[in-house]
């Protein structure tokens, strides 16, 4: 059913918080996602022309890098992009078959590939480019938030999180219930000023991004100290005058 579900009071809003301050752009999340999902319940994520001129495939998560310049500083920002499990997902409502749906209980946006007709309209409706077409099976694919991990009781509890979160070497990805203000992810968003991507389009993404920041511990003078006027060695000699003990 592609009408958006009524969100029950107290329902969870599962999603990711991605820390752009620590993401080093290593592609670990993207490849581990590919690996988990290609063998997972959702079926193989296809690759095309694997060893030829135009290697391409379906990925649920892709890592861009950008250079940013603001009056304060310039830097390189690595940016992982995947489905944001929006609260207002146009990709769901445009679906003519009900294949694209949002779960009432946790807000996860999924595709039922058994009834998807492959019209691609949902991919047009997503401003984040998060949906990719599976040419081999003629259906649309997207991030499932590893629904086959997070509720999988065959896995140890610590492993019940999306593969991208488990594998992230820089710990730049966090998973949890963003509807619960006391959850670690919600607190992280609160403390670090987490933002919505493309907020102006009104999709109200569940996933949040933490913007880059500066080191928090004081590290001494921000201004360059003047060249000592006493001449080279005076301070050193004073230091060396002190008795030492071996």
């Amino acid at each position: 059913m592609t009408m958006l579900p009524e969100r029950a009071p107290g329902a969870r809003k599962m999603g990711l918080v991605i820390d752009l301050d620590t993401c080093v752009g290593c592609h670990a999340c993207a490849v581990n996602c590919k690996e988990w999902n290609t063998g997972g319940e959702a079926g193989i994520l296809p690759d095309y022309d694997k060893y030829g001129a135009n290697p391409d495939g379906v990925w649920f998560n892709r890592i861009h890098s950008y250079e940013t310049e603001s009056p304060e500083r310039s830097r390189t920002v690595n940016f992982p992009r995947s489905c944001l499990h929006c609260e207002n997902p146009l990709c769901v409502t445009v679906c003519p078959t009900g294949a694209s749906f949002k779960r009432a209980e946790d807000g996860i946006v999924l595709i039922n590939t058994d009834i998807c007709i492959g019209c691609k309209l949902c991919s047009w409706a997503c401003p984040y480019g998060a949906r990719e077409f599976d040419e081999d099976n003629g259906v649309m694919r997207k991030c499932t938030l590893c629904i086959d991990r997070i509720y999988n009781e065959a896995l140890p509890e610590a492993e019940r999180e999306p593969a991208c979160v488990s594998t992230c070497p820089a710990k730049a990805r966090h998973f949890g219930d963003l509807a619960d203000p006391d959850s670690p992810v919600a607190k992280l968003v609160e403390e670090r000023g987490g933002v919505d991507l493309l907020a102006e389009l009104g999709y109200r993404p569940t996933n949040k991004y933490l913007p880059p920041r500066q080191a928090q511990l004081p590290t001494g003078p921000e201004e360059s100290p003047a060249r000592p006027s006493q001449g080279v060695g005076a301070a050193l000699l004073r230091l060396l005058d002190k008795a030492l003990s071996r």
Partner: protein
Amino acid sequence: MSVKSVAHTTCYMCACRCGIKVHLEDGRLRYIEGNRDHPINRGVLCAKGSAGIMTALSPARLSTPLKRTGPRGSGAFEAISWEEALRLLTERLTAIRASDPNRLALYTGRDQSQSLTGHFARMFGTINFAAHGGFCSVNMAAAGLYSLGGAFWEFGEPDWEHARLFLLFGVAEDHDSNPIKLGLARLKARGAKIVSFNPVRTGYSAIADEFIAVTPGTDGLLVLALIHCLLEAGQIDTEFLVRYTNAHHLVIDVPGSAEHGLIARDAEGRALAFDRTAGTLVAAESLDIDPALMGRFTLPDGRAARPAFALLAERYSEASYAPEAVAARCGVDAAIIRRLAAQIAEAAFRHPVVLEQPWTDTAGRRHERMVGRPVAMHAMRGISAHSNGFHSCRAIHVLQMLIGAVDTPGSWRYKSPYPKPIPGGGPPGRTVGPPGTPLDAAPLGFPLGPQDLLVDEEGEALRLDRAFSWEAPLAIHGLMHMAIARAFEAGAQKIDTLLLFMSNMAWNSAMNPGETTRMLCATDAHGEYRIPFVVVADAFASETVAYADLVLPDTTYLERYDCISLLDRPIGSAHGPADAIRVPVLDPGRDVRPFQDVLIELAGRLGLADFTAARGGPLYASYADYIVRHQRRPGIGPLAGFRGADGTAVGRGEPNPEQLRRYVENGGFWSQHLPPQQLYYKFANRDYLAGAQQMGFIGSAEPIVLQLYLEPLQRLRLAAEGHGARVPPQRLRARIARYCDPLPIWYLPLEQAMSERSRYPLHAITQRPMAMYHSWGSQNAWLRQILPENRLYLHRELAAELGIEDEDWVWVESRTGRVKARARTMSGVNRHTVWTWNAIGKRAGAWGLKHDAPEFTRGFLLNHVISEFLPGNGADAPQSNSDPVTGQAAWFDLTVRLERCSPDSPDETAPRPDANPLHITPRSEKPT
């Protein structure tokens, strides 16, 4: 119903050695994830490790032993049996060993079993053994091991939990990557400041709080300027210096004498110092003295001597090391250098880390707490891959020592089993006795002076690659990058069989692939190959395989036993020692064998000591058998865990037949946590050193004195001045005298000093993409989607100046050639530096890729414009393009110019050597 299982083993998609859990379903790979219990990666796994499935399915996997049938390089082979391959090799090596074992040269690339391969070489009796360290990071290894008894990366790590300021110098982001990423995350979470010194702002530099776009090859100068500022401001940890370093050791000051610059010693050989309280000379190791760090003293024999620190302070106080003097050269404002020095001092001295943890020093003195300097440093390729890298790395270590930031809370720390005594082992093994006698020590070692060099009467190198000679005296990892060029020069007199394992010496591991492949194919006047016999052992059809006479197909990492040994490149951390195994998870289903198994069988067939049973024949059935039963010294074997008959001994203990099973039960690894009183000050921590001795890591529990002043270099330098029995050949004397300075120096990288800078004004370097490991990623269907081709990156302003736009084709021209690349502009790069990703370009025909793969058509190697040799001076043969102290390949010394290609230039890179895919005649179709 499918059958599911999980195996614990060790990744080998790069050199990180992370623990992995491999999920199988009906015998097929289903999923590989990080092992949450493993000390290296604690559950995380990078892109490479996560793509292991696709490497296990690579179309480039070799499937049978091969014997060359066409000309070298043609790719024409016939499939042969293992029996035939081993028989061929045994016959050849038996003959060599009987006449001159040094005519076997064994180079083992990115080997993680060097304790085995090196031992094979030693028992065979050849000095010509090395792994890839010479073209990777020997500058750092040598500088660290000779200065601190440990080194960046493999033998040390920052104190991620306590550092306040982290200085990162030119890191290769495919090395030690998961531990560093985990560490950076900890620093970030704690709000510590990260400063990255790198010409390029990608990867780790991208998340640094401050990015210093240093000019390539000037890091050492920048560090010396920081030292200048700290000296100027009197911000030095003198207490640390006199307790733990040789700063107060007196250095003989009689210029021109045979002992000038050496440490003054008493009759017992103990270094001397001057005690200011007593006003007398005392043994520097004495307790409770007030050692002078400045001044000039007279030795009992009347000679003058000065504390090592005084020499240091005098040198770096000079105006030539002032930030203002180095700023232009380094490409960093003087004000920034001064601010960074002030921030280092602030963090080190205003914010010491105090842990309420008592410990006892080697003098038996109890300290109530551990106090540390929270300034941690880490360095890698940006330091190492220059011909001044040894001294640059030494400069960083000197900076660490001056602020007391070595193995203290918050600073850089040793990883077990380090620290080791300085230096960490004996001299390199040499030929003793008749042909066939094992070397007197392992082929790679640590020279302490001219007496330890491997040179002949004329002072010329004995080794093929000239390691441990006056051309590269501290080449403790050998010079693998010179092996083929030197073999070509020497010809059959000096070399018969060149056995290469797991390195792509005909392509991206060659400093110049065109020259290297030409030399591999060169013949003498009789039409015989100048390098008579080339054996390549590899799992994959790399570019090098086509140049082999005999190919020994290896398995992938998921198809064999392996050990990550404390005897080799350990995976211990600052928290304690660890080692691990690999276990076969998949059945290869091809006629391939693990190289280690093959080497052990070959050793047995050759009758090598330590590998041959008393009744003859191989002593070990396989590498797995060797891992369990081999003892290097009594009780010390490849694996430290679960030793002894009952499996309870650690470090030392009898071989345990059940050892591998115990490792498997333990998740594929063994680790031990050091007690808290042993975690810091390991170089002088009594309990730690006693424990390390007990475990067999070190021979004695004596304190390890950090070497601010490096006396062995002065010994070499004195020889260059003509002192002593062994002196360098005349042509190398000035070079040795200049570069073997016992205190860090900075000099223009050799190639830059010799090339025409007005014509080649730009620096050209490579960076390591985090999702690739050298040439391995391109055969991987997932990883190659990320980077199937590479770009030449340059600063937007430089591009504008040269009229170059994104996606334009440009010629990158150096003094030796040119390569065609596609440009991409950016801001986060040193204004005078161009760079690209390493090892993306491939030779058509290799790696199982189709003929139109972008790796062939548009991917390019910067190696095409690098040379193994420096420009000649006309009189002498050209020197190798390497660090003059360690022989480290100077990849990053390259200078180039750019020129935009004409718009009608074809949409492909150049040079593009002809495709040479393997053509294999099957065994059954072999003509009779």
